[in-house]
């Protein structure tokens, strides 16, 4: 144990000091700022204008190192490891000091109150919110007032919570799963058999044995408050073959240790049948159209390619079509009078550009395109993050610690009361962990008050005979 403490002392004194922790935090801030300024961090959110404005591409570190995965980079991970070690050692030493301090305080608590004056002084300290203990030794009586001991506990709790949060982040990184899939109404998805559009799997993540199949019944695209279902669906437990579960857009559903959640992307899947004059079928079924925003309007489009890309069909769905100025435009995103625009290209040459209403068939060049009904599709996420609960636990701890730290400031006032030759005199000293200037003011007021008490105090009103004899 001694050896361990000696090693910890060396680490504490030379490497893991609070100043070092501060430098690590500055390092973390720097990394976060670079991440925030680098537009390649996440193209879907970050404006390219900022990149042009700051000419970030020209800044060599950003350009050469890339920083695409800032928070997974070795430097950040190393910073977090150092920070964790620093925190752990700090917690160890803080706890050790706190235990020692409490032991000392208990010894003092048992000391007897000696004189009336002693009691009056103690009362004065207590009025100011100090917990008082007294100790008599010869002609000196020491009255010790302490305040803010919960501050230290708060500080320990807060730093411990950061370690818990960092631990949670590590668990999240290595043992979590986050998969995205998209489904059209009527389709099913089985996470063990079907492919995710995008999945991030932690190194130590193990797929649960419990399996399920998710069947999408219908998508309700409009957001409804007060818990109204935005999506109705069925989760079929393979073993039990039942369970009709409505899924709410704002309320994830947990199944087999994983949480199913509707994503924010949703769109239309029209039924399209493409065949040629010889009766050869090129495509048949519901096609998920991508949605994008153009000039404030939602655009639903897709393309299909055949025969090594030589034949290409480009589609655009106009959900609420209106014929205006020689062409169709969509007035809204609602399915009122849907029309499908079809462009057929062969070797990049446009063969046909035509429109077909829902339920209709159109002949474009040598192809026949049937446009059936329209279903909706939606994006879903399936995630499992065991680190999340650890993080939340840490956050709760952090809050308690911060509040304790805020409401208490560690202060100590020591009054030495001397009783020599029938005369009484005292001195007062104090220490504070912070706020020195206001504490000095408090101490000065206290000194004046005690002097006033002493002036009024009749000489040698001693209640403890043992002390009287000593004097």
């Amino acid at each position, binding site marked *: 144990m001694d050896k361990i403490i000696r090693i910890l002392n060396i680490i504490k004194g030379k490497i893991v000091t609070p100043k070092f922790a*501060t430098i690590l935090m*500055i390092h973390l801030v720097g990394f976060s700022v670079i991440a*925030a300024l680098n537009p390649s961090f996440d193209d879907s959110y970050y*404006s390219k204008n900022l990149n042009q404005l700051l000419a970030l591409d020209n800044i060599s570190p950003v350009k050469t190192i890339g920083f695409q995965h800032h928070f997974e980079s070795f430097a950040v991970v190393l910073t977090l490891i150092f920070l964790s070690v620093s925190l752990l050692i700090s917690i160890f030493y803080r706890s050790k000091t706190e235990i020692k301090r409490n032991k000392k305080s208990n010894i003092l608590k048992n000391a007897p109150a000696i004189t009336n004056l002693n009691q009056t002084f103690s009362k004065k300290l207590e009025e100011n919110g100090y917990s008082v203990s007294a100790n008599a030794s010869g002609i000196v009586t020491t009255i010790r007032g302490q305040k803010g001991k919960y501050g230290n506990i708060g500080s320990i709790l807060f730093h411990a919570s950061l370690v818990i949060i960092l631990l949670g982040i590590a668990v999240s990184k290595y043992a979590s799963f986050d998969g995205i899939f998209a489904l059209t109404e009527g389709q099913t998805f089985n996470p063990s058999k079907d492919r995710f559009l995008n999945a991030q799997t932690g190194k130590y993540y193990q797929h649960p044995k419990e399996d399920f199949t998710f069947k999408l019944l219908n998508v309700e695209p409009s*957001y409804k408050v007060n818990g109204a279902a935005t999506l109705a669906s069925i989760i079929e437990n393979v073993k039990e073959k039942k369970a009709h579960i409505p899924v709410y857009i704002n309320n994830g559903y947990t199944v087999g240790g994983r949480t199913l959640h509707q994503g924010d992307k949703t769109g239309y899947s029209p039924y399209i049948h493409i065949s040629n004059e010889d009766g050869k079928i090129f495509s048949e079924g519901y096609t998920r159209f991508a949605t994008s925003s153009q000039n404030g309007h939602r655009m639903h489009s897709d393309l299909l390619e055949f025969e090594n890309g030589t034949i290409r069909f480009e589609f655009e769905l106009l959900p609420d079509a209106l014929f205006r100025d020689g062409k169709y435009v969509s007035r809204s995103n609602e399915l009122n009078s849907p029309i499908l625009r079809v462009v057929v290209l062969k070797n990049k040459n446009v063969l046909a550009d035509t429109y077909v209403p829902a339920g209709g068939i159109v002949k474009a060049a040598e192809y026949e395109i049937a446009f059936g009904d329209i279903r909706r599709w939606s994006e879903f996420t399936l995630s499992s993050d065991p680190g999340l609960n650890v993080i939340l636990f840490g956050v709760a701890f952090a809050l308690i610690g911060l*509040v304790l730290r805020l409401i208490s400031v560690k202060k100590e006032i020591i009054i030495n009361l001397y009783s020599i030759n029938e005369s009484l005199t005292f001195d007062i000293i104090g220490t504070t962990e912070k706020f020195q200037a206001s504490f000095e003011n408090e101490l000065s007021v206290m000194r004046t008050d005690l002097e006033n008490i002493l002036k009024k105090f009749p000489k040698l009103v001693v209640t403890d005979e043992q002390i009287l004899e000593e004097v």
Partner: protein
Amino acid sequence: METILSVLYWVTVIFYAFSFAIFAVALIFQKSKLLNLALRVTLIGFMLHTAVATARWVDTGYPPFVSYFEAMSASAWFGVLIFLILQQWKPFIRAVGVGIMPFIFLLMGWGGTHPFGEKILPVSLQSFWLFIHASFATAAVGCFMFAAGVAVMRIYKQKNNCILEEQLFIAKAERYDEFNFRLILLGFIFYGIMIISGAIWADAAWGRYWGWDPIELWSLITWLLYAVYLHIYFTWKKLRGKFLAFYAIIALLVAAFSLWGVGIVYKTLHTYGG
């Protein structure tokens, strides 16, 4: 209604600007009587400000910190509120008005350039968490703004020797440092609660607690910046004073950017109503 509110709002801004001018004159020309006048002007401005905020609340039916205009106005209101309360309790705060009022009327002026916002709360924002999240953001920025004001006063105090320090309620520089620390600690806690409540709301709304959205990232940067401030205060005692005073002012700019500037520069999921 909106026209009357708009006029009252700008009158409030003028009152705050006037109060700053009077504070500045009181300090530069060492006229202690002007300090009381400045406080009275601030109080009148605050009463008008409260009337505008209350009228807006009654008009819309939801607390006024949802739109850009409302959020900025609410933060300024909170800053003035704690200034007025604390100066009564701690007289040495009175002269700090010269540091705080510029931030207040600049923020109010910036807020005034934005439209008032929708009268109906957008459906996506109809959540109990909005009020927790937004009120703690407002309170945190109010504290940071006040701290920056104290920092300005601290820098002024170091550079200028006042003969009438007692009459002008000017305290020792160390007193300002301590007070700044307390305000930033309080703001740091409020900001932490704002991030946590935001994460809980994000989970309910978007299915994840944290998504590295620009505002989330900048909020983390701001929080870390203030954590660094607290660490420096504890561990680098030599850097207390002027350095940390400048730090508090710069950190406030980062905090303001993370709340109201990010939406201008970046595409973000976080939207202000209206």
